[in-house]
């Protein structure tokens, strides 16, 4: 049998290695290799999707023994939680390569870094060995550091350094938690499936491990108050860097929150659930209000990520506190779907801001006005995704947030105050649309070209999926639901 999952993980890396040993490659060939390998990877993840998942545990598992003495092995596989994220990852990478194809700035190095990052990202979601998970988790940091430091904007060195130090400081506690789980398991193993099944750490050790994990994932998500690296990194990152950072890498945090904290330490998480919930609510509301205060369009979208990921945290915390398995499934369904929706919608918004910046070389909202008349396709696309982002029914965020609020109302009704944030989000998007796209166009923008064919090609799949998930959430939710109803704790 062909190891599809491993192929999907390592195919991009193979592309990177091939490119590394082809010095002096032209940019056309470099971009061609990037698009080709990421397209093949996307096809492989579609095959994974068609194979589907089974209730209870993981499917499509592939294993190779590594160090038997300490129970470390190469183990990959998917369940309903990771499979949608894998598909989202391969799609966003493919679109990023298509978007980037016009760029000529050290194309070969950029494509190599992106392919490395794709391997690390898919690997993070499919790893079933804690050591392997950590390796992929960290490799993604390194690739993103070089992407920001090498291709970012004016103040990129400082932003990249801050990003790397902040998130490394954030991820090292996870290493301690992993070691703690390892030392508590009997016999010694790094197999995440066994950790989920036997939950080796309990009591005070479990609580310490949970705190370490929560710190790691809160930095990654990012949740209040450790979110401060995110705006700096986003503003300085190149467009595709922002798309991947927001669309894929933030999900490492929420994915880890479910996979590690919730599944391996459910008891500790249940008792600490209220604290996590409070931070989730603060993140959601605070993110929305700070976004309202921004004048830079990219910064604004970066802060709405804090808000949207806050809802995911709320969903997971509510799931941890839920006693009724049906309600827990609703909360987790909502949280997981929210991850997918956020990837689609915010990924698209960052693409659009990048396209605007390519034309205007500024992102200050007050510099624009009336762009809807000059660049209607860009304008309407932005308005479409802005409405999707504020949770309009019929678009991707609505079914996700609806389920999160439904479960919250059932378990911890006060936390529904975070629904206020939706009003704030609506206000800030309407203000942004008004400032940038409505009113009388400024003279300097009259010559601005509208989106070209390649750019439209990048947006079409995202528009289609945003509508599809909004109207028929079942296409994704059925897979998620298979797993969330069979978690077994």
């Amino acid at each position: 049998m062909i190891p599809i999952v491993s192929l999907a993980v390592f195919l991009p890396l193979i592309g990177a290695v091939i490119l590394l040993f082809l010095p002096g490659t032209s940019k056309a060939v470099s971009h061609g290799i990037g698009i080709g390998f990421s397209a093949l990877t996307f096809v492989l993840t579609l095959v994974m999707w068609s194979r589907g998942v089974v209730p209870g545990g993981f499917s499509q598992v592939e294993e190779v023994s590594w160090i038997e003495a300490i129970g470390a092995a190469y183990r990959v596989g998917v369940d309903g939680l990771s499979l949608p994220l894998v598909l989202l990852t391969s799609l966003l990478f493919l679109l990023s390569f298509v978007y980037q194809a016009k760029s000529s700035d050290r194309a070969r190095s950029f494509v190599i870094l992106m392919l490395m990052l794709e391997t690390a990202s898919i690997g993070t979601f499919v790893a079933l060995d804690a050591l392997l998970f950590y390796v992929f988790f960290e490799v993604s940091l390194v690739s993103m550091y070089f992407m920001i430091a090498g291709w970012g904007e004016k103040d990129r060195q400082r932003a990249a350094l801050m990003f790397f130090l902040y998130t490394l400081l954030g991820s090292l506690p996870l290493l301690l938690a992993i070691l703690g789980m390892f030392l508590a398991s009997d016999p010694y193993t790094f197999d995440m499936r066994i950790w989920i099944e036997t939950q080796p750490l309990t009591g005070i050790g479990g609580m310490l491990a949970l705190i370490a994990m929560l710190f790691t994932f809160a930095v990654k998500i990012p949740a209040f108050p450790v979110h401060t690296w995110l705006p700096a990194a986003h503003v300085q990152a190149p467009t595709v860097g922002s798309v991947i950072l927001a669309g894929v890498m933030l999900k490492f945090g929420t994915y880890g929150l479910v996979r590690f904290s919730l599944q391996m330490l459910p008891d500790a998480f249940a008792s600490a659930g209220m604290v996590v919930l409070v931070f989730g609510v603060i993140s959601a509301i605070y993110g929305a209000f700070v976004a309202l205060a921004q004048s830079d369009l990219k910064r604004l979208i970066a802060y709405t990520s804090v808000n949207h990921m806050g809802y995911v945290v709320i969903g997971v915390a509510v799931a941890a506190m839920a006693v009724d398995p049906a309600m827990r499934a609703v909360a987790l369904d909502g949280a997981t779907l929210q991850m997918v929706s956020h990837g689609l919608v915010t990924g698209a918004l960052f693409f659009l801001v990048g396209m605007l910046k390519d034309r205007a070389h500024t992102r200050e909202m007050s510099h624009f006005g009336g762009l809807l008349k000059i660049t209607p396709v860009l304008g309407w696309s932005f308005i479409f995704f802005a409405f999707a982002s504020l949770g309009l029914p019929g678009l991707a965020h609505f079914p996700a947030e609806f389920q999160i609020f439904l479960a919250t109302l059932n378990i911890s009704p006060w936390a529904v105050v975070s629904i206020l944030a939706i009003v704030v989000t609506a206000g800030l998007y309407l203000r942004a649309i008004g400032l940038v796209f409505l009113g009388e166009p400024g003279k300097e923008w009259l010559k601005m070209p509208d989106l070209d064919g390649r750019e439209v090609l990048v947006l079409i799949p995202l528009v289609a999926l945003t509508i599809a998930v909004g109207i028929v959430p079942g296409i994704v939710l059925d897979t998620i639901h298979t797993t969330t109803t069979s978690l077994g704790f």
Partner: protein
Amino acid sequence: MSRDLAFLLPELTLMITVALMLVAEMVRRAGLTLLIGLAGLALAVWFTLPVLDAGTTVFGGTYRIDLLSGWAKLILLPATALSMLLARAELSGRVREGSVYSLIMLVTIGALMLAGSGDTMLLVLGIVVTGLGSFALVAYPGDDAATEASMKYLVFGSVTGAVMIYGLSFWFAGSGSTLFSALSGMQTKPLLAAAGLIAVLVGLGYKAALVPFHFWAPEAYEGAPVSVAAYMSVVTKIAAIFALAQLLRDLPIQTGWAWAIAAIAVLTMTYGYLAALVQTNLVRLLAYSSVAQAGYFLLGFVALGRGDIALLSIIVFAAAYVAMNIGAFSVVLLAGRDIDAIRGLGRRAPMLGVAMVIFLLSLAGIPPLFGFFGKFLLFGAALKAGFLWLAVIAILNSVLSLAVYLRIIVAMYRAPEGDEAAPRASPVAALVWGTSLAATLGLGIFTRLFFS
């Protein structure tokens, strides 16, 4: 006796090799000296393989043929070969070039003695042999800086050596034997045990450049040829650390040595990286970085006597440290000692730049590089021994270390100012950094080799 000698085949091979090397040096055939040395090292590695897990002692328990000394050979002998090749790249054609190779070989023999010592007298002998060779190696360039560095190194070494011998006499008084294995009797004599422990920490701490006995290291590395600095930062350091492990394995845990080691580990890691943060000379920066790295080794020490993981973690990290540190030094050798000299290196020599990035990230402990797996096992050892706070401090230091190493990486990818020369092209040095790169990249994945 013949049984003992059979176990000593690797050491005997090296002694014959060094004698042949001296003959070749007498007729001023530097290339031949190098070849004899490399052949001898290869042969010694070959002889080590069958006795790797012998788990025995020779000469009445004074010299140990165990996992630690076996791996010491498998790690230090290739490290010696790489250092010799690096010296060839740096010093080729200089007067008495062959003496450098012969001295390096001599110091390596002393290093093996240290790593296998089971007796305090052998420990002292190892310190003296490695010391004498190293003083001469540092002084090799013959200029003022080298002479001063060597002098400081010598004075510092003589004082710490004397303190150590004095302190070891307390242990002899307490246990009535010079064997480490007799130290188990020290449990009832805490004062004598403490006096000896302090003395050993002074003597071996100096050799391994642990804080606060590290002052000589940046000076000596800076004065010495880069290849000699690379050699000393790896071989003599690891030998001293292995010797300390041989000794502390037998010292009863009740004497509280684990706490002393933990305190020194914290000091060494933190001070090393803080000092490295402000260096502009890359050799000094790497010197302070290797001071800090020595602190990580000590994380494994606190778990000595609590299962295999302690020794394994020290061995794996030693192998990783050899690969990444020699690699980093060889790039400095090619690019120049100043941080401004390395500016734009990543654009002028892309492959060399990528190699340096990988060495530095491995030193910082970023997966999936070899350095990460070593540190990971060390953290695990510290946790297993119940030293959670020590692991937490080590982790905070890892963040600090990233700042240290990123300074070099950032400089490497800044736009060159135009007048920087391309790095020296040297096929021998390329062989060294290529080998180190392969080990840093690949051995992490093959860490299982160490778990045989």
